[in-house]
């Protein structure tokens, strides 16, 4: 009797096993979802689904969401959600297109646009970190305000044409048959993943999101981390807007509308939580975006109404939150 008990208590800690992490970690469920989507695409649509041409089409549409997702991940990780990213993309593309149409060169137009985005991110940070505003509600306000500003910038026509041939060539460059910026966005995701999981800074961000009081007691400046995360998310959205304007050669009222839900739904499916910080991984987030894009692509190739995408995304979202809770997230009563 006693020996058995002793045996079970004295069991050595399980050795680090990357394969078990794949099966149980925060990226596990999205890995399976992603494989399932690819499998469904392969069997239902056929080899065409995984052809370079098709992946290249998906990649082109994924560039902006991937960039925005990679930069807004740290905000989610540190426990503040920034809903204004969609409008920020719209605002950034409108301001950038306006400056280009006024004859500015792309580099200085981009610099001014990014600074403007950082200013609005700063307002978010003051309201949320400075005054203790509820992040969801405060950034919802910023979402609407920025949309208004973008629409005012776009003027009565509701669109600005700012086609710049150098920008367009740069953005639509391809390597190995895939869009260069898509590969860059994937590289960005990989860098973000390394920073979040392997560096001191990334661990600080996770600590703040996991338990801000404990993090504060451990000597981490919670305020600084959250301000930096909100500024980073604004910067990423600004960058996304500039790339968007470069891709389209114009900015319009619809640019970026609803992007925040598209990105956050995918990030949550990918293992992030918008209600508690400290969980999620940029790789999972990117896989979430790829999976949702895959679903939408399958329905598109099968000529099925795009509204079914929203239904599937909504159901996946609920399933993802349920999984997050079962994995140790806060139960709501």
């Amino acid at each position: 009797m006693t020996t058995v008990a002793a045996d079970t208590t004295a069991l050595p800690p399980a050795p680090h096993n990357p394969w078990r992490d794949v099966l149980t970690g925060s990226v596990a469920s999205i890995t399976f979802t992603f494989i399932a989507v690819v499998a469904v695409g392969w069997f239902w649509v056929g080899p065409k689904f995984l052809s370079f041409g098709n992946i290249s089409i998906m990649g082109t549409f994924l560039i902006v969401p991937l960039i925005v997702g990679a930069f807004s991940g740290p905000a989610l990780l540190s426990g503040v959600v920034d809903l204004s990213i969609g409008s920020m993309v719209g605002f950034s593309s409108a301001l950038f297109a306006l400056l280009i149409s006024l004859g500015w060169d792309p580099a200085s137009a981009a610099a001014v646009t990014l600074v403007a985005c950082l200013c609005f991110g700063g307002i978010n940070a003051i309201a949320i970190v400075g005054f203790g505003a509820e992040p969801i509600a405060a950034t919802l306000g910023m979402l609407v305000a920025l949309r208004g500003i973008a629409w005012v910038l776009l003027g009565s026509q509701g669109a600005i044409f700012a086609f710049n041939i150098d920008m367009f060539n740069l953005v639509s460059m391809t390597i190995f048959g895939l869009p260069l910026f898509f590969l860059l966005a994937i590289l960005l995701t990989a860098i973000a993943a390394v920073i979040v999981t392997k560096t001191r800074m990334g661990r600080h961000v996770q600590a703040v999101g996991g338990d801000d009081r404990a993090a504060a007691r451990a000597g981490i400046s919670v305020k600084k981390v959250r301000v930096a995360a909100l500024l980073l998310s604004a910067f990423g959205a600004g960058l996304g807007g500039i790339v968007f304007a470069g891709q389209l050669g114009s900015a319009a009222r619809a640019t970026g509308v609803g992007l925040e839900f598209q990105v956050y739904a995918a990030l949550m499916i990918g293992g992030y939580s918008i209600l508690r910080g400290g969980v999620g991984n940029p790789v999972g987030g990117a896989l979430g975006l790829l999976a949702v894009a895959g679903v939408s692509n399958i329905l598109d190739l099968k000529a099925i109404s795009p509204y079914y995408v929203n239904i599937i995304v909504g159901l996946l979202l609920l399933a993802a939150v349920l999984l997050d809770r079962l994995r140790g997230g806060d139960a709501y009563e």
Partner: protein
Amino acid sequence: MSLNQAIETAPPAVPLKVRFGGWGTGLMLLAVWLLLIVATGLYRQDFFSQQTVLAVAFTMSIVGVLAIGQGLVAISGGFIDLSQPAGMITASLVAVRLSEAGMPLIVVIIGAILTGMVWGAFNAAIIVFAKLNPVIVTLATNFIGLAVLFLVFQLAEVPLNSDIYHFGRASFLGLPAIFWPMLGLVLVVGFLLPRTKYGRRATAVGGNRAAAKARGISLKATRFAIFMAAGGFVGFAAVLFAATAGPFNPGSGNAMQLNIIAGVILAGISLAGGRGNFWMLLLSVGFLSTIPTSLVFFGLSSDTQSIFQGLILIIAVAIDGYRARKGTP
């Protein structure tokens, strides 16, 4: 048991400062509202007209009723119900179909309210049984609901010359007929919530879940009741919406969402739950509904409206957060 009853019947012991703070919200809202009215009036004399009053009262009606539902969810600790647009459009569609079938107005109203309550119960079922946060659940159900609605219909409208059509265009005592039910509902809910057992329970659950549970209040039952009641208000708002909107599509309700949330927060109904006076909704929704008309008189485009609404929401939430931070040392 006796302790339980004592707590439920005793008037809440509120420090004088906090009670004054509640009225402070009202005074501040009134001052800001009057400032807006006076400023617009000084800029353009013709702002003071029956037309302005009609426009403001009209805007207030639907937003006000939806704000009651939103306020109930917030005060009971449910944070925000993001699925109001889908719920309202579903109930509006039911109202349209019922009036197309020639049903009398009362049947149309009951049908819409029941639809709203079923929608609320659907949300509550997911929230309670899966123990998921209402914000995410309602975000997802709104997503799913609107997509299904787009598959079901593209454009709907109540038939001309039906009862509900005339109700939407009638006026009573110089104001739109749809304004009076909103006023009555806000007054009744604001009166009953702090004075009835159920109202105090809802507020208690929002204020401190653990304490409410320890007192024997069923969190699940309260959550269900709150979401169904809030759904009922969404259903009634759907009647007012269908009566006045003309042809509408599944996306027509989205624009109201922000005004409703801003109205609830400005009224001092904390998103953290447990605190708030529903009568303040009349002032906050009134103020927010005056902004569009004022901007028109200032000669600003309707695009600038969203800038003001957004900034006001940020300021309101910042004040709410500052208060909550001061309240809990």
